[in-house]
């Protein structure tokens, strides 16, 4: 699946866009779910971050952040990939009408088409083994500045061969034993807010904002669509949890859905009286993970049940103020085996470190979007940064969708929807 066609098919015909696909280098991370002390720890989890930004008329106008976790060595031996959609946002500065929902759907379709094995190449391990290495020849973090300078001096005089020829041994590469059996999960958390990726964009009157109900409907529409289109109907189930709402009311949110296996609950398993700690994932920047950390500090980790977890979570600030928030999840198999491998320099920019990733992403997320200038500056900076520093560019995209036919259908194509999840980024720029 080509990024250009996939996203272009959702954008208005006759308009030109540019898309940034930034990706972190895959890195092994601690398990997403806390294992019981008795359980063996032979699972491997590899985390990769995707960040997409869509530009139109020299303005950044939309962005989406998705994490992909590939887990190997699970109990039944089936590999699993879990997509966590952490943030999406528009800012209202587009110079034409486009469907943020359509773009979100297209980008998720694209990520779902990526072969999980792609994430298992040259993975940064959880712990690096420097044994067998002559540390005095290698400039690594554990070497003091003084000694590192001496190593560099030796290298320049060619007194030592730099240990740089074989860097690959500090990375791991693995294959999937049975890629056909890979389980696909997708989850997200909906909570309306002014902005998440575009600070201050709520001040733009052109930005359409949604309340909790609208936001949930918007996401359900996207996911329902993806479920029907991409997933095996028989082996897949989808779940919705709305803390503080009765199952009867939760089912009401699902009445317009086409997919048959929507249920009330979540995809993480466990019964109401199981300890929450084993069934709630530790996602980045996520209120559920933060609440688990709070329980840890209060020494209530192992005696807080799932039922109590959800009840108490609802009492927390982020769930209060009668704002409708929800947890949505999908678990199953895709109809087609994911086969796509993104190509560095063509459709994706893979950052060599977390630092580089944030460096580039900050040009977008650390900008102020209270006026149009922010959207223009972010575009100019990202373009200059890519061309001068990365010798690269964004992917040009031609809109291919005839919007005139759907213009009347106001419900399915909101004007300029705000898509907001999780917590706002704090601005990195220093304001004094």
């Amino acid at each position: 699946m080509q990024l250009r066609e996939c996203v272009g098919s959702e954008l208005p015909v006759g308009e030109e866009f540019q898309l940034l696909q930034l990706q972190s280098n895959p890195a092994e991370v601690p398990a997403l779910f806390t294992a019981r002390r008795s359980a063996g720890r032979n699972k491997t989890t590899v985390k990769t971050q995707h960040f997409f930004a869509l530009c139109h008329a020299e303005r950044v106008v939309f962005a989406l952040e998705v994490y992909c976790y590939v887990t190997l060595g699970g109990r039944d031996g089936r590999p699993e990939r879990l997509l966590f959609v952490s943030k999406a946002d528009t800012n209202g500065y587009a110079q034409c009408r486009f469907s943020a929902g359509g773009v979100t759907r297209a980008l998720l379709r694209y990520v779902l088409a990526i072969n999980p094995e792609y994430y298992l190449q040259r993975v940064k391990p959880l712990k690096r083994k420097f044994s067998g290495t002559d540390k005095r020849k290698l400039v690594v973090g554990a070497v003091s500045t003084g000694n590192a300078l001496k190593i560099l001096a030796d290298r320049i005089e060619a007194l030592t061969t730099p240990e740089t020829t074989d860097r690959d041994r500090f990375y791991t590469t693995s294959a999937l034993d049975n890629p056909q059996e890979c389980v696909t999960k997708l989850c997200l958390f909906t909570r309306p807010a002014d902005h998440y990726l575009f600070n201050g964009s709520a001040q733009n009157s052109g930005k359409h904002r949604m309340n909790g109900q609208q936001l949930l409907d918007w996401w359900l529409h996207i996911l329902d669509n993806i479920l029907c289109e991409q997933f095996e109907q028989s082996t897949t189930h989808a779940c919705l949890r709305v803390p503080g709402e009765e199952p009867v009311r939760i089912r009401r949110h699902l009445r317009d859905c086409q997919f048959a296996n929507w249920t009330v609950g979540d995809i993480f398993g466990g019964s109401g009286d199981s300890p929450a700690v084993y069934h709630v994932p530790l996602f980045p920047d996520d209120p559920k993970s933060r609440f688990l950390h709070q329980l840890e500090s209060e020494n209530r980790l192992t005696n807080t049940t799932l039922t109590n977890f959800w009840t108490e979570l609802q009492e927390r600030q982020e769930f209060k103020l009668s704002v409708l928030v929800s947890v949505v999840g999908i678990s199953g198999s895709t109809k087609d085996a994911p086969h796509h491998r993104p190509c560095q320099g063509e459709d994706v920019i893979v950052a060599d470190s977390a630092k580089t990733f944030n460096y580039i992403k900050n040009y977008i997320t650390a900008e102020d979007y209270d006026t149009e200038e922010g959207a223009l500056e972010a575009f100019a900076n990202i373009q200059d940064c890519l061309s001068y520093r990365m010798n690269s560019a964004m992917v040009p995209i031609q809109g291919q969708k005839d919007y005139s036919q759907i213009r009347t259908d106001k419900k399915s194509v909101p004007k300029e929807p705000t898509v907001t999840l999780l917590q706002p980024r704090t601005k990195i720029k220093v304001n004094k």
Partner: protein
Amino acid sequence: MSDKKQIADALRGLADNESAMDVVEKQVEKYRLDLLRPVYKDRDELIGRVPSFWMVVLSQHSNFANFIRASDFKYVDCIDDVRVEWDEANPGNFSVNIKFHGLEGDFPAQSVTKRFRLVKVKDDMKVSGNDEDRESGDDDDEEEYERLLSDPVDVEWPVAYDSINPDKIQDKRASKKEYRTGMKTLFGWFRWTGLKPGKEFPNGESLAELFANDLYPYCVKYYIEAQRDLADEMSDSDNDDSAEEPLELPSDDDEVQDHSKKRRLE
């Protein structure tokens, strides 16, 4: 009553003691800079012999990039030398000297020195208006704070920046956007005064402090970080999210009650 008086006196004494500490800290800072001056001088000389030293330092520092425009890096890469000098008498005042090499047909080689001075300002913002119920003249208790100011300094802009160069913009009104863009560049920073917030280089004071308190003192450390054989080694600042850190389950024997395990330790 005399008890109360005693306590009140002790608290006043503590206020004086706090001032005494501030004096000590300033004296220490002066002592420190006096000792470091010759060490920095040696270092400047050594750094001058390492090719592209400042290019490496400045292009790998993530916070520096947040201050300027991405297009500036073409000229940041022309920086051959950066020096910070603190006034001997008053270490709050300092100057940043930057040496650029030229780019044929676009940018002339030059050396620019921007001076910053720390000035005391009466805090008239925090106690806004309402002067009626305060005796004038009795200003002693008014909060003072320190602010960094500077004067604009001449710098030749690249030809490629003609359209955003404030000296070359004819019609300021029609080119307001270009003017503002120019002000956000590294060259705009040389014009920063600290007196026209919102109209000049954004956070000019913080960039000055970044040079004086971080980039210059730790440049060798940053140079080495940029030379690491494994670029993806975590540095402290990469660890941006505590939410996904693994949880520590209580050990079996204290599963039930065990109040303060370590929380977040400094």
